[in-house]
């Protein structure tokens, strides 16, 4: 979330789409209700089905799953046509005025300029700003420079660079300025086209669009709208681009950085934000540092590739905060390898594995199926159930030598070898050794978790783990220490990183999480002095924050964005101050949020270019002329002494300093502007460009399990979701939750039920090209048949919570078919998230 849960109460308008917070984040949704109760805020719910969020909405629109870019592109079109935009914000805080290189082509035929149909990749040279200064490699690269990973951009060719001085036109009239290109791009997204694609009748659509953009009626800048989404947007083969469209719309309306505004991703799980921050993902290192690639010959080369230089109009200023990348990276290497990380060996840069291709989730299972991966450790992660394509994942696991599962309940992944359909005879042929280790539940361990609002909060252990169960960190530590002992004793392949990993925890086999938290925060390894203030930090002391990090090895820090969480003043993440002086729900003294305890990101943009809040009623930060500094109720997300007349951009993490309506040089792999593509399985050809129906960068795998259905055989659009009563694959072990939703069901429209002669609560089969799911029919008026490009299309939905281990399952009251055996293993080319929303099925009586 750019903002936070409580901040939703400050909004005037909510567009909730690709998310169902009433059901999946009920306690956060209270703030949406507060906005309705206290500010008469409006709520627009757009969803494939009428959910319990829709039940509280002022307007509900039923959308075909996977057509969100068409919907949002249409909103951009409407806002531009009707002048419902934030002109000053747009000119000063976005790249609307930047001029794009000659030769850049919009995807009228579904493809941007530079597509090579042979390799299936884009040449990115025209996806750039026109500008001057610097030359070639000397110019440096962008903050999110593309990586050498297939599916993103070409591996061998060096990525293009952003020009240091960008040409621009503040009148926004230049035919190649971003604003004009944006206008042109979405001129095709008329209400009529949106209706053909999304199935939302034009009059309903216009009503919703008029309501949403009404916050910028008559040039008013006081009102604020928020966009709230969740995995309904991410789980598509164009998920990143849906979110980008929302971000662009919010920039266009001047809603980013403001109380009650923003683009708010509702993360699904209690510490999924923290897991992302800590880089439990193949392509990043803690704090969103890039994973090294083989082309990075040494640390210097890596830093050169990943450290951006500013790219902006000559007269403007850009903080370009990622220019500090070397400090963050060296401090991380010092945290990991301590004394073994020296200046001479590039701070042990070579200890880190280098990635040159896609090792993401769907690739794990494909490569495992193809025999590459021999062993797997799964801690609190039920990979069989999560899918996609459960059957493929089960068959992949059959080929492994060993599997370690750390869990608190018996789960499907640890019992893949006796999944339904695998006979005792077949079990004898499965040679995987499976270890199932009993772990600790949440109440049995301490440690910090980071919520969707980036609040890092410590929790305390209340009870010991049951029986012989052990703390998760102890198990990983004990495995690691035993591996280290083996390398000490026997030697082996490149043992250096294992032998030199810092492990100075007081009790090495039971590392205290408080010590690890202090390592994450970072400390001084030599005496540090701030020349400006004269403040001194002695060697061994905890750092006050990431501003103190150094690239010379005199600081260590496990995750730079978490620096400040556990300082010399103690654990900031344990703070419990309930004061909220501004009344905006900032709660500056409650726990701690990254970065630097800021609660709303980009909050400089809550002020006009002169540094005055757009809305004096909702003052977050402001420029204090007398003291020549930025001050505020929140921590300013900005260079504190940057005078507004210097025109530094508020989006300090971009080398441009401004928000990107146009995403240059392939930072988004599939195009500088989002374009509507159909889901991989779709009932129609893309009405915008039937010859390029899908995202051209999406990769399909080749195992026998990777089958796709055509609309002739599978005519129904299906989407998956979660229910408020259950939590993923966890609460099916909890009787209280099981009784609320005792059995799996499939929500189907009344009309489809009548057509098929299906009665409510009758068992039915949902069949995709990959498998058959059996559950009871939930015949409902909350899903209606839709007209898609002149064709009647049914849409159905099913929750994912039941599997083959659980209270109901063990009692034989369930067909024991995991929902994800229906879903295809195809993923978004940017975020690598699989497309589990919007695939094709057919329905039969069971």
């Amino acid at each position, binding site marked *: 979330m750019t903002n936070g849960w409580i901040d939703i109460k400050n909004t005037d308008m909510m567009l909730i789409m690709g998310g169902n917070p009433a059901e999946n984040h009920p306690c956060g949704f209270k703030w949406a209700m507060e906005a309705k109760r206290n500010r008469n805020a409006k709520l627009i719910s757009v969803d494939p089905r009428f959910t319990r969020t829709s039940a509280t909405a002022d307007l509900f629109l039923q959308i075909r799953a996977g057509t969100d870019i068409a919907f949002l592109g249409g909103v951009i079109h409407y806002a531009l046509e009707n002048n419902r935009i934030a002109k000053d914000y747009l000119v000063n805080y976005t790249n609307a005025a930047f001029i794009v290189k000659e030769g850049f082509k919009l995807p009228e035929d579904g493809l941007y300029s530079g597509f090579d149909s042979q390799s299936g990749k884009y040449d990115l040279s025209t996806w750039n700003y026109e500008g001057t200064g610097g030359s070639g490699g000397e110019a440096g690269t962008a903050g999110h420079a593309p990586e050498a990973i297939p599916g993103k951009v070409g591996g061998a060719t060096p990525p293009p660079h952003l020009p240091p001085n960008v040409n621009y036109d503040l009148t926004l009239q230049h035919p190649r300025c971003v604003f004009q290109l944006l206008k042109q791009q979405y001129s095709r997204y008329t209400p009529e086209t949106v209706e053909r694609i999304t199935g939302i009748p034009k009059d309903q659509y216009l009503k919703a669009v008029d309501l949403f953009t009404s916050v910028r009626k008559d040039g008013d800048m006081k009102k604020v709208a928020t966009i709230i989404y969740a995995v309904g947007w991410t789980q598509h083969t164009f998920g990143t681009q849906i979110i980008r469209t929302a971000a662009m719309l919010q920039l266009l309306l001047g809603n980013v950085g403001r109380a009650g505004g923003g683009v708010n991703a509702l993360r699904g*799980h209690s510490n999924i934000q923290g897991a992302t921050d800590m880089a439990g993902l193949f392509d990043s290192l803690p704090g969103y540092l890039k994973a090294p690639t083989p082309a990075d010959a040494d640390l210097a080369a890596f830093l050169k590739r990943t450290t951006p230089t500013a790219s902006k109009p000559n007269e403007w200023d850009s903080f370009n905060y990622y220019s500090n990348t070397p400090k963050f990276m060296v401090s991380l290497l010092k945290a990991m390898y301590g004394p073994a990380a020296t200046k001479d060996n590039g701070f042990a840069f070579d200890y880190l594995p280098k990635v040159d291709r896609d090792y993401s989730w769907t690739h794990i299972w494909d490569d495992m199926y193809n025999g590459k*991966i021999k062993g797997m450790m799964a801690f609190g992660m039920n990979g069989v159930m999560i899918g996609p394509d459960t059957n493929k994942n089960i068959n992949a696991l059959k080929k492994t030598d060993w599997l370690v599962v750390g869990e608190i309940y018996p789960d499907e992944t640890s019992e893949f070898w006796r999944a339904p359909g695998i006979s005792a005879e077949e079990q004898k042929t499965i040679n995987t050794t499976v270890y*199932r280790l009993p772990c600790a539940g949440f109440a049995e361990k301490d440690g910090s978790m980071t919520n969707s609002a980036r609040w890092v909060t410590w929790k305390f252990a209340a009870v010991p783990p049951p029986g012989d169960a052990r703390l998760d960190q102890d198990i990983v530590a004990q495995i690691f220490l035993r591996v280290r002992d083996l390398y000490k004793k026997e030697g082996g*392949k490149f043992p250096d*990183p294992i032998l030199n990993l810092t492990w100075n925890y007081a009790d090495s086999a039971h590392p205290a999480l408080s010590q690890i938290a202090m390592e994450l925060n970072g400390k001084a390894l030599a005496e540090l002095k701030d020349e400006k203030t004269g403040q001194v930090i002695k060697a061994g002391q905890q750092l006050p924050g990431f501003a103190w990090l150094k690239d010379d090895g005199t600081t260590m820090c496990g995750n730079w964005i978490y620096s400040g969480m556990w300082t010399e003043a103690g654990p900031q993440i344990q703070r419990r101050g309930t004061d909220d002086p501004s009344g905006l729900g900032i709660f500056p003294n409650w726990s701690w949020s990254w970065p630097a305890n800021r609660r709303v990101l980009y909050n400089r943009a809550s002020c006009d270019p002169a540094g005055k809040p757009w809305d004096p009623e909702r003052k977050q930060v402001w420029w204090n002329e007398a003291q020549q500094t930025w001050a505020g109720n929140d921590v300013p997300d900005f260079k504190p002494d940057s005078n507004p007349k210097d025109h530094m951009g508020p989006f300090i993490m971009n080398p441009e300093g401004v928000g990107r309506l146009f995403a240059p040089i392939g930072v988004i792999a599939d195009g500088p502007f989002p374009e509507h593509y159909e889901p991989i399985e779709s009932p129609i050809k893309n009405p915008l460009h039937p010859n390029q129906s899908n995202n051209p960068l999406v990769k399909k795998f080749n195992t026998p399990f990777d089958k796709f259905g055509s609309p002739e055989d599978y005519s129904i659009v299906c989407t998956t979701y979660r229910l408020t*009563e259950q939590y993923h694959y966890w609460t099916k072990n909890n009787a209280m*939750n099981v009784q609320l939703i005792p059995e799996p069901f499939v929500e189907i429209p009344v009309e489809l039920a009548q057509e098929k002669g299906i009665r409510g609560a009758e068992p039915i089969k949902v069949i995709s090209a990959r498998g058959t799911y059996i559950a009871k029919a939930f015949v409902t008026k909350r899903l209606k048949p839709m007209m898609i490009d002149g064709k009647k299309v049914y849409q159905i939905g099913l929750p994912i919570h039941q599997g083959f281990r659980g209270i109901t399952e063990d009692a034989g009251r369930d067909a024991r078919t995991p929902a994800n055996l229906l879903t295809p293993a195809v993923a978004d080319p940017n975020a690598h998230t699989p497309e589990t929303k919007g695939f094709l099925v057919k329905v039969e009586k069971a």
Partner: protein
Amino acid sequence: MDTTRRDFFKTATIGAAAATIFGFDLQPAYAQLKELKIARAKETRSTCPYCAVGCGVLIYTIGDGAKNVTPQVIHVEGDPDHPTNRGTLCPKGSSLEQDMLNPRRLTKPQVRRPGATDWQDISWDDALSEIAQWTKKTRDATFIEKDAKGNTVNRCEGISFIGGCTDTNEFNYLVVKTMRSMGLVYMENQARV
């Protein structure tokens, strides 16, 4: 409101009068008020493990922590001080007591041997030793020091680690530290899906 109050008062008066005549005594009824079950419990502040709202929860345990006493969970409810949830919890958070006291919890290490059709128990020591041996054996067999072009890559492609969604930041960092140092690149998390 006035009507209601008057009606209520009248009803109460009538009831009381009737009680007098029939010799009812309401004192025993008062005595039967249930004791507040958390009256002598200890409060521990925790965070709900489910969604990313991160609600503050209070875990109520009984047992004073003396050396022969194991704390017992008797109740969980929302932390009223927490600014986000202000004491509220959803249907999953409200059932957390049952998550802790659940008879389905795994309580001992188990192993399923190749070709076996069931689990067997294994000691922690044996399990950890075997896992360490598998890890080393697989790493040594699949480790790549240089790619085809001679670039240093130092990666292990034979092992994958997948992590869950409710592990702490500190655990996740420990995993990144240990697994990256073993050269793992097939590292993914619930955060992806």
